């Protein structure tokens, strides 16, 4: 054979084989997209570390994490879905859990997780998975179960002459009456007493961290009837209204105040906000459970789940990745930022190593007790419309001379048709 012809044939064969091989690799390569609402660099580094770990057993799979702004998180996510560009996995907030779980948008996880080596789904409490389960199938993994608690600035409280939460707890007097009284003392001294973080007179569901102490709920257990007019809710909102407009214990509407700037007595927020505590010019802070209400002691948690979209082209791989991401080992990594729902991790030893800012007592009393006993923030199918309707109704409550009972009557009459659907 002609030498030149032989060379040309070999070269062509090499190119064709090469092309064929690269096509095959391209077909095998899987790029998973997961939307998250945190753009925190430490969170992203941890997620990427987990994705790298998955690559060890799945070299063809890469995962990219796509942070979306929190305020418009669900709106952006649904717009991506409407535009035909949904992610493979998504972080889902507790308020929209019912919409995602009931719509059939998410892939079932229970059987897949139970089929994974060493994945102990029973380790995750039923209470934690309730919101994400339908007909016995888990549709999203509750990877973050973060209790609401009170951060206190003892410097501000003492300067105003108010008792600190620790003193009230020691005296067995940690109740909402006394907490509001301490906040009022601070408020009347010219500083801010108590801030419900992220509430801003819009995100009313965060007030569950207060009204649950009265045993109040926004709707009946079956979700069909508004219960804003029930005595427990009227009493709770009357107490909140008095704290705002009469006692000046809480800032009024239109006042944007950040506890972590150091000029506020107390704030109700999730423990994951501990990272906002100032490192320079720190103040004497404390983290305590929510005070007892007339209905006794209680806890409230916010949850976030991660689900896989049923229509994802990479559904099976995405489910496999989610299983890996939330196995016992990686849940421990996630626990440094997102309190876990796994019973095996709910101990002072594990949580102390991942939350070095918190004392053993705080971990025991706030984190573990909160996760174990907490009720999840209210959520409902079609929550966005219900949230908006109640927000509009409650606006009439946030004025000094509001008639609480009649405002709540109006809230119920406007939201009842939506709940009854």
């Amino acid at each position, binding site marked *: 054979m002609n030498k030149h012809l032989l060379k040309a044939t070999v070269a062509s064969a090499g190119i064709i084989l090469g092309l064929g091989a690269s096509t095959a690799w391209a077909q095998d390569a899987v790029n998973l997209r997961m939307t998250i609402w945190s753009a925190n660099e430490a969170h992203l580094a941890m997620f990427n570390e987990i994705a790298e770990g998955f690559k060890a057993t799945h070299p063809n799979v890469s995962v990219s994490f796509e942070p979306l702004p929190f305020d418009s998180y669900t709106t952006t996510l*649904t717009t991506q879905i409407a535009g035909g560009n949904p992610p493979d996995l998504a972080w889902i907030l507790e308020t929209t859990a019912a919409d995602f779980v009931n719509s059939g948008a998410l892939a079932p996880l229970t059987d897949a997780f139970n089929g994974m080596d060493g994945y102990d789904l029973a380790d995750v409490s039923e209470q934690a998975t309730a919101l994400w389960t339908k007909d016995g199938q888990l549709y999203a993994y509750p990877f973050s179960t973060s209790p609401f608690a009170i951060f206190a600035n003892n410097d501000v409280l003492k300067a105003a002459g108010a008792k600190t939460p620790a003193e009230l707890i020691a005296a067995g007097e940690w109740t909402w009456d006394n907490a509001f009284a301490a906040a009022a003392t601070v408020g009347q001294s010219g500083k801010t007493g108590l801030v419900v973080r992220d509430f801003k007179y819009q995100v009313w569901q965060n007030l569950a961290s207060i009204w649950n102490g009265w045993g109040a709920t926004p709707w009946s257990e079956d979700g069909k009837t508004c219960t804003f007019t029930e005595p427990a809710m009227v009493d709770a909102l009357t107490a909140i209204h008095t704290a705002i407009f009469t006692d000046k214990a809480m800032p009024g509407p239109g006042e944007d105040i950040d506890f972590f700037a150091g000029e506020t007595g107390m704030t109700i927020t999730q423990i994951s906000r501990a990272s906002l505590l100032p490192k320079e010019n720190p103040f004497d802070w404390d983290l305590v459970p929510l005070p007892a209400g007339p209905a006794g002691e209680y806890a409230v948690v916010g949850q976030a789940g991660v689900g896989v979209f049923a229509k994802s082209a990479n559904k099976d791989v995405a489910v496999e990745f989610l299983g890996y991401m939330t196995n016992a080992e990686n849940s421990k990594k996630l626990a440094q930022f997102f309190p876990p729902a796994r019973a095996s991790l709910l101990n002072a030893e594990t949580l102390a190593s991942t939350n070095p800012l918190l004392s053993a007592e705080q971990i025991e009393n706030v984190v573990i007790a909160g996760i174990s006993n907490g009720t999840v923030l209210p959520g409902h199918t079609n929550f966005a419309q219900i949230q908006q309707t109640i927000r509009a109704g409650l*606006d009439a409550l946030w004025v000094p001379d509001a008639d609480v009972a009649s405002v709540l009557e109006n809230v119920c009459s406007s939201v009842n048709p939506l709940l009854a659907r």
Partner: protein
Amino acid sequence: MSQPLQAPHKPPFWTIARRDAAAGYVFIAPQLIGIITFVLVPLGLVFWYSLHEWNVLASSFNFVGAANYQMLLADPNLSQVLLASAIFSAGLVVLNMTLALLLAVLLDQKLRGIVVFRTLFFSPVVVSLVAWTIVWSFLLQNNGGINGLLSMLGIEGPNWLRTPTTAMISVIVVQVFKNVGLNMILFLAALQGVPKELYEAARVDGAGAFKQFRRITLPLISPTILLTSIITIVGSLQVFAQIAVLTQGGPGMTTTVLVYYLYQQAFQFHFFGYGSTLSILLFVIVAVLTFVQWQLRKRVVFYEN
């Protein structure tokens, strides 16, 4: 003697007229393709979506005919939304046009440093809308800058964004300050186009300043007034970012204007079909208002007679 046979004359296909026409089509093609792709097709799609119930999460897309339009007629919130839109548009148009004309007349003077003043009044137009609105949201909050200034004067200011009346006024004023410079510049250009000899003649005839303004200035700048009024009304019906940042439609629903309401329905509540129906309603309102204004030009615009 017989005439020799001649082949019938066939006119050439590629005539000058055809060549010019082809060139014309080539020139308008980019814009035409853009209009079709980004205006007409989406408009058609919105109408198509308005005939469907589209549940994004469940991936269902079902034809429901006029059901969304029936829902529109029965929507208990619609009258309040349309009222809020009307109040916002009326307030914005009156305030914006009056202030823009007043500023234009003042800045039409031959004074030292007048260009600096014109630039100052125009500068908000080039500022990012969202950044502008966020700054105002801080100024207008209960413990914000506006009430701080008022308290220095011994006045206790209202909670601007939380009281129904002041919330709407606040949104209107923030929008006016943002865009008044644009109308001002248009009015200024129109004012500078009015022949000065007309004023001289009027002065000789004994006309005062107000009479000169009413009889000369207003008629001669009336085409610009028509143009700015159309732009301002259409713009006022499309207000969104200011509402989203300042009031989120509240308190109650007092500042929930039509665009914000359709955004809520489509993107927050996931009723894309009903949201599309509301967009069609907005389109019809804008089209009717523009048509009415265009027809009014024969009565109110000086050159149209």
